[in-house]
């Protein structure tokens, strides 16, 4: 039992953080909003040099051979800078290809992913819109029963405009053919479920980063901005709003890290663990957006200030890979209908235990 990260893991996180802080400034992110695809092949190359797209790809296929406990730390950094390159889409795609019974697709694609030469994406019915489908070289989607692996040319995309300039969403249509089919029935559903969980986990981890950044922006501003002759950060109202967000972030992080472990090990409670992570992290990030805006006041409400960059990320991450309604329903189904409490972390609940009526304290 050890609930923490290794020094190597934390070092890689720091490396990525430093890299992104230098490269992926708010100006750069906002610049991407103006481009047609919103995605930068040059930047993708740089990310590939760091190994990020191939993080989950085995070392023999040219990847880093790491797992989701490594990935979440980096996804936090991605969220911290508000980056929206198709790292989530690719991670989800890699996870799915790795799990196919037939290794040929993985053998064909994963080395290319690790080399930065291919982008993957997976569609899931919980989200009617697929992010980054326009830049995916291979997209995996269901026809209702079977999963199909579809090269870009086989897709018909209908672009949707998100309020978040970083988010590029598409409705996807295609003709299912025998030669694109990669899994059917039960196997297809299991793969799809795992893909959703991996995508939701990545979104949750990014939400942690966005939350942290929104707190940092507000704390920084509150320490500088003076009204009534003092820094507004000295007012309890400001302190307490931010402290409440910090509390939420702390406990959301615990859920996300545990969910990462559950996804990496395909643990029994994986889906519920992921839903808890998604709910907690997105809620923290959404609250951070509101509080950060309130602390900034009118200046935060302007387009030129950067608060909205992360606030909009929080909004779109909340909707990605299952919205809050979806994940709360899945949580309740786990806790209430299947009486998961008996499997609660460490603690196991006997049926209708007698409760001590005395000795609270």
């Amino acid at each position: 039992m050890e609930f923490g990260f290794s020094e190597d893991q934390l070092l890689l996180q720091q490396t990525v953080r430093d890299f992104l802080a230098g490269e992926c400034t708010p100006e750069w992110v906002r610049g991407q909003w103006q481009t047609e695809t919103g995605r930068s092949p040059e930047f993708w190359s740089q990310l590939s040099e760091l190994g990020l797209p191939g993080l989950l790809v085995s070392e023999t296929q040219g990847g880093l051979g790491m797992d989701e406990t490594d990935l979440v730390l980096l996804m936090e950094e991605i969220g911290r800078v508000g980056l929206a390159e198709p790292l989530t889409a690719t991670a989800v795609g890699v996870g799915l290809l790795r799990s196919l019974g037939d290794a040929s697709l993985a053998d064909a694609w994963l080395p290319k992913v690790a080399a930065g030469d291919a982008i993957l994406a997976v569609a899931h019915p919980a989200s009617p819109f697929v992010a980054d489908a326009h830049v995916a070289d291979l997209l995996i989607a269901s026809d209702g029963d079977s999963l199909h692996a579809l090269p870009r040319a086989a897709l018909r995309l209908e672009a949707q405009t998100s309020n978040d300039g970083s988010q590029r969403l598409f409705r996807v249509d295609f003709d299912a053919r025998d030669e694109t089919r990669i899994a059917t029935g039960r196997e297809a559903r299991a793969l799809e479920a795992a893909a959703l969980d991996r995508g939701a986990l990545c979104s949750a981890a990014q939400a942690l980063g966005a939350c942290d950044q929104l707190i940092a922006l507000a704390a920084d501003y509150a320490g500088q901005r003076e009204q009534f002759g003092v820094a507004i950060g000295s007012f309890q109202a400001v302190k307490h709003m931010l402290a409440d967000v910090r509390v939420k972030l702390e406990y959301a992080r615990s859920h996300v890290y545990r969910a990462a472990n559950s996804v990496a090990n395909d643990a029994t409670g994986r889906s519920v663990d992921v839903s808890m992570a998604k709910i907690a992290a997105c809620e923290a990030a959404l609250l951070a957006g509101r509080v950060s805006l309130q602390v900034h006041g009118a200046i935060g409400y302007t387009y030129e200030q950067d608060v909205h960059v992360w606030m909009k990320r929080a909004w779109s991450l909340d909707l990605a890979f299952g919205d809050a309604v979806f994940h709360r329903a899945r949580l309740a189904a786990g806790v209430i209908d299947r009486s998961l409490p008996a499997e609660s972390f460490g603690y196991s609940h006997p049926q209708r235990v007698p409760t001590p009526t005395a000795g609270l304290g």
Partner: protein
Amino acid sequence: MDLTYTPEQDAFRKEARAWLEANVPAAPLPSFDIAEGFEAHRAWEKKLHAGGYAMVPWPVEYGGRGSDLLEWLVFEEEYYRAGAPGRVNQNGIFLLGPTIMEVGTPEQKARFLPKMASSEEVWAQGWSEPNAGSDMAAIQSTAIRDGDHYVINGQKTWASRGAYAHWLFGLFRTDPDSTRHKGLSFILSPLDLPGITVRPIQKINGKAAFAEVFFDDVRVPAENLLGEEGAGWNVAMATAGFERGLMLRSPARFQSTAARLVDLYHATVERGDPVAPGMRDRVARCWMDAEAYTLNTYQTVTRLLSGGKIGAEASLNKIFWSELDIEIHEAALELLGPRAELDPRSPAAGDAGSWLDGYIFALSGPIYAGTNQIQRNIIAERLLGLPRK
């Protein structure tokens, strides 16, 4: 990251479960806020001690089991699973004990720890005074050195367990000319000395959870000074760190309460009593938050085991568990509907049980061990770097 238990931890869990199943009293003990219940709980503590489970994380030499914090968590999980009694000796186990181990002299360790472990001596807290609540640095009670004694005068209040405890620990002003955090010392005092008057204070449900303790020229031997004279504030902050940070509220407490809430939800639905449509999500959320608290505690323990410290993060903890406790109980009371206000012994109380008492207890959570307002200040200033003034 490895979220599985070792074979040793599994074995310890099995052993603890077996012992608890064999030994936990079948019927709930009377409240330890009444004299009879206090003694019944003390007897239970002695039984725990005899079984080797009273002070799981303490060194064996002081009456503990010598377990690490992970085994302690495992034990707590089993303790709550078994529905075992509340810990009347909590102030000793989790607060004073670790403090003495950290700053006490060898003589103090030998003198106090074994009797604390065996619950021969039960301890009361003596932090607050009428004018020193959230502002603990405003303490006015004095302990003036006179030869090999301190002469104590003043008044402590909200001394938890104070009505029946044998000893009290707290801060006293040893330098009468000092102000605020300086000139305070951490002193241990028997509660049966001449000049001490203990007045029980009833909490809002009428039970004597605390006491006021009046000191009138009370002579306490100088060897009862814990840590250096004048260094009391720092000693107390270490103790408060234990209180807010980790040991006061073990995760299993909330896991078991959340699990009972799930039971209550099912029972209410099965009985056909009205349930708000949103209650399903609300119950699930309580369970999720108890889980978050558990996970976070395991993270903290992992950090501590590799040499980390609990700092201002303890304040995050305090806010989270105290609000969670209220959330869970409010959901339960809503499920109970009109029975929520009934004394459990009322003929129509049914399975209302101790939820109302639990709620009343939970309401003290955002107040004691430093109000949540104070904790938010600490978070903002020490974790987020906001200006103090």
